[in-house]
């Protein structure tokens, strides 16, 4: 009913051969025509259900990721899929995109039961998913990635392909260089490629998994504009998120998942952030975090003109300066990839520093290995972002992981597992770690328990300085609060804490001061008590708030 019109539009837009096979496909190409005409086409709003999930169950080994989940999205609607980390949002959506197969349950597309066996099927059904971890081939160009796997058309890779991509992206109001290789791109650019990929395939059911995590507020706004326009076109959109403000801003309805089950579906207009949180967590939540007064004054750590190059040789941290007091939680805010990882690793002695100094009680620790730093009597604990990849040995048990930083202390050439075993047992009791045994590989524990193992070990070493990167990522609210409490406990003991975070609301409540990073530079350090989210958001984008484009 729609496609003759579209093909006219396409031709009018000068996009001929390349898109012909798309218009000839059996789908309703809802996305493209809006952008090509550049104005919202007034058409009847359909409220028919685009896709419906019934009783979906998915288990991984003995872990039940999704249990009897029901969910539906209508055409021309944005549905937010809200849930804490580990609540099964991504797993559920991966079943729509054909990555996983449900153990049981059914998927109804336009009222008809369908089986999605593979991503290929999902594309066929007009389902497009933008994954949180981009599914792009590094060594290929944007064009190649966008065209990858597209059926039909010429068998040859024609030189003119990228012109067409460029043309389309211009119409879509997106900015990319078609010939640029993915590995040369910034995160923002990569997401643009992902969006184009989905658009090129004319998806009319769009799933976005935490799309704003890597974006600046300006980029987020732009993305939301695009989503609204697609919605007006009759697309069904599912956006996975755990950010309540985004839910309230963009969605029409919200489905809440908790521990792998669908708890409720509510109209966004009829709810509020507080109610959503309660639904998400499953009990009334006092959304306030303690901030004990800092009883210490002396400076613990001074960082001067620190410049750090990352593994690719790019200066990820440029000339930054700050100090950390005893008994202080200094938050570090910034868009993902602004230099947080490099800052942490440089401070922990894991990345070489190109310039600058880190003074601990007036003593420079630059150039020292982590081992030497420990020998100097500085106990610095670092809870890295990539817990199983950096902080722990995933296929070893708790015992072996407890020895990680202390195994050298045992005399002689052999290791002793006795103390580590006792420590493990103690931590299981203290922090309520759920594990079948102290020798069970930690990769089999849930995210919250893994984090507790790591935190427990680090706190056990009685640090003076504690660095935590995304300490609560992947944790449910309960576990998060346990972690905040532990941190506050350390704070009151006089430990200086560097808290790399992503949730500004949490940071404003927990931290004493917040340092904002943007492109490896400090754009400001604010008092948490008096600052606002808007102020920090502005600093995150470089202070002016005008640097909105996707380029880095």
């Amino acid at each position, binding site marked *: 009913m729609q496609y003759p019109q579209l093909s006219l539009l396409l031709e009018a837009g000068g996009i001929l051969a390349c898109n012909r096979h798309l218009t000839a496909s059996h789908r309703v190409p809802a996305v493209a025509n809006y952008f090509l005409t550049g104005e919202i086409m007034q058409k009847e709003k359909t409220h028919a259900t685009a896709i419906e999930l019934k009783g979906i169950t998915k288990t991984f080994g003995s872990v039940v990721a999704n249990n009897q989940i029901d969910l539906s999205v209508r055409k021309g609607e944005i549905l937010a899929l809200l849930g804490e980390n580990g609540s099964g949002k991504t797993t559920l959506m991966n079943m729509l995109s054909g*990555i996983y197969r449900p153990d049981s349950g059914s998927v109804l597309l336009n009222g008809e039961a369908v089986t999605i066996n593979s*991503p290929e099927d999902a594309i066929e059904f007009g389902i497009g998913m933008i*994954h949180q971890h981009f599914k792009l081939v590094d060594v*290929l160009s944007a064009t190649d990635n966008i065209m990858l796997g597209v059926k039909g058309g010429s068998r040859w890779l024609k030189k003119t392909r990228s012109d067409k991509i460029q043309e389309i992206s211009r119409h879509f109001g997106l900015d990319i260089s078609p010939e640029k290789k993915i590995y040369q791109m910034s995160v923002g650019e990569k997401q643009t490629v992902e969006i184009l990929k989905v658009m090129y*395939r004319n998806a009319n059911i769009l799933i976005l998994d935490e799309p704003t995590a890597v974006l600046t507020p300006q980029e987020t706004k732009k993305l939301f504009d695009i989503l609204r326009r697609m919605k007006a076109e009759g697309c069904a959109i599912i956006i996975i998120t755990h950010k309540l403000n985004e839910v309230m801003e963009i969605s029409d309805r919200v489905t809440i998942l908790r521990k792998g089950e669908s708890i409720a579906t509510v109209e966004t207009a009829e709810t509020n952030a507080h109610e959503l949180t309660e639904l998400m967590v499953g009990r009334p939540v006092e959304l306030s975090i303690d901030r004990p007064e800092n009883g210490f004054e002396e400076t613990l750590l001074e960082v001067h003109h620190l410049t750090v190059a990352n593994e690719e040789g790019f200066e990820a941290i440029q000339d930054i300066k700050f100090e950390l007091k005893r008994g202080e939680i200094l938050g570090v805010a910034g868009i993902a990839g602004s230099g947080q990882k490099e800052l942490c690793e440089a401070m922990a002695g894991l990345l070489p520093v190109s310039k600058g100094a880190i003074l601990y009680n007036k003593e420079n620790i630059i150039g020292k290995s982590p081992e030497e730093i420990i020998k100097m009597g500085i106990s610095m604990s670092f809870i890295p972002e990539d817990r199983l990849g950096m902080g722990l040995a995933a296929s070893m048990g708790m015992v072996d992981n407890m020895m990680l930083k202390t195994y050298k202390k045992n005399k002689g050439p052999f290791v002793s597992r006795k103390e580590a075993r006792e420590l493990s047992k103690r931590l299981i009791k203290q922090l309520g770690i759920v594990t079948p045994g102290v020798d069970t590989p930690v990769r089999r524990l849930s995210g919250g328990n893994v984090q507790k193992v790591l935190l427990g070990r680090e706190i056990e070493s009685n640090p003076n300085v504690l660095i935590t990167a995304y300490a609560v990522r992947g944790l449910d609210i309960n576990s998060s609060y346990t972690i905040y409490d532990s941190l506050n406990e350390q704070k009151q003991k006089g430990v200086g804490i560097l808290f790399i975070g992503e949730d500004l609301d949490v940071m404003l409540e927990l931290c004493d001061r917040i340092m904002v990073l943007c492109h490896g530079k400090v754009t400001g350090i604010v008092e948490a008590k008096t600052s606002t989210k808007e102020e920090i958001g502005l600093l995150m984008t470089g202070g002016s708030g005008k640097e909105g484009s996707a380029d880095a």
Partner: protein
Amino acid sequence: MIINFLFAAIKAGTPLLFGTTGEIMTQKTGNLNLGVEGMMFMGAFVGFFTGYKTGSITLALLAAFAVGVFAALIYAFLTVSLRANQNVTGLTLTIFGTGFAQFFGERMIAAAPDKSPKLPAELVAALSEKAIPLLGDIPYIGKLLFSHNIIVYLGVCIAFICGIYINRTKAGLNMRAVGENPAAADAAGINVTAVKYIHILAGGGICGIGGAYLSLINGGGVWNNSCVNGQGWIAVALVIFASWSPVKAILGSLIFGAFSVLQFYVPKDIIELPNAFYIALPFLITIIVLVFTSMKKSKEGAQPAGCGINYFREDR
């Protein structure tokens, strides 16, 4: 002299070209198959045996291709479908293939009239080096480029076709994507399993023809139980040397072929180097190439990122 040398180099390099092209096809799709030696051995025997029984060059090459495909099918089934360790499976394939060729070769010898199976005369004639009319008459170049046995041209053609296929076609693009990042390819709707199977099988078949070259051409018409003798491993080295490009493999196999015959052409009174040095040289150069590519840290012209890792969609 120089022409003779280069001519011999082309002759010696051709089986390597097949092995290398086959292995490039396999590696480009994300599978490191260390069974090239085995697949070439199987191709060598089956190619020879078919030629011995039928006298047909076409059938001999087809049979060699088919047995290469069969060997690769074992590898593909184990590594792609059953996700077995690629290195171990490849090594096992080499053991199996070598045993296969030597076992049946031994039996063929035992069954032959004078315990020495010889190819029929018409087949030997068909396989002989012949100048192409007109082109072959061009001085120097005619001898160098247009006076070879027919399989040499076949090898160069296959390498060119594979090169164009990989870089210029959509199917080739899909294959590269699978080799680099199977999860991304999968999400883009490419059937990763099918792509892997197709290219591993095709690669195995090409290796099989390379084996047949060794038994049909190099053996001088008589079966030799150790005719492959490490050529498969050199082909694996050449893949690195050619930086995973079949077209570069043409040049690479020429160079490697040249080294293998160099000792017969270097005037002994001027330069005296041990023979072993010439044979080891290709491996040494391969190492240098390997080190240099890693120093550049370039993502292109390097081993496909997904190589050696089996893909399972539901891996988290």
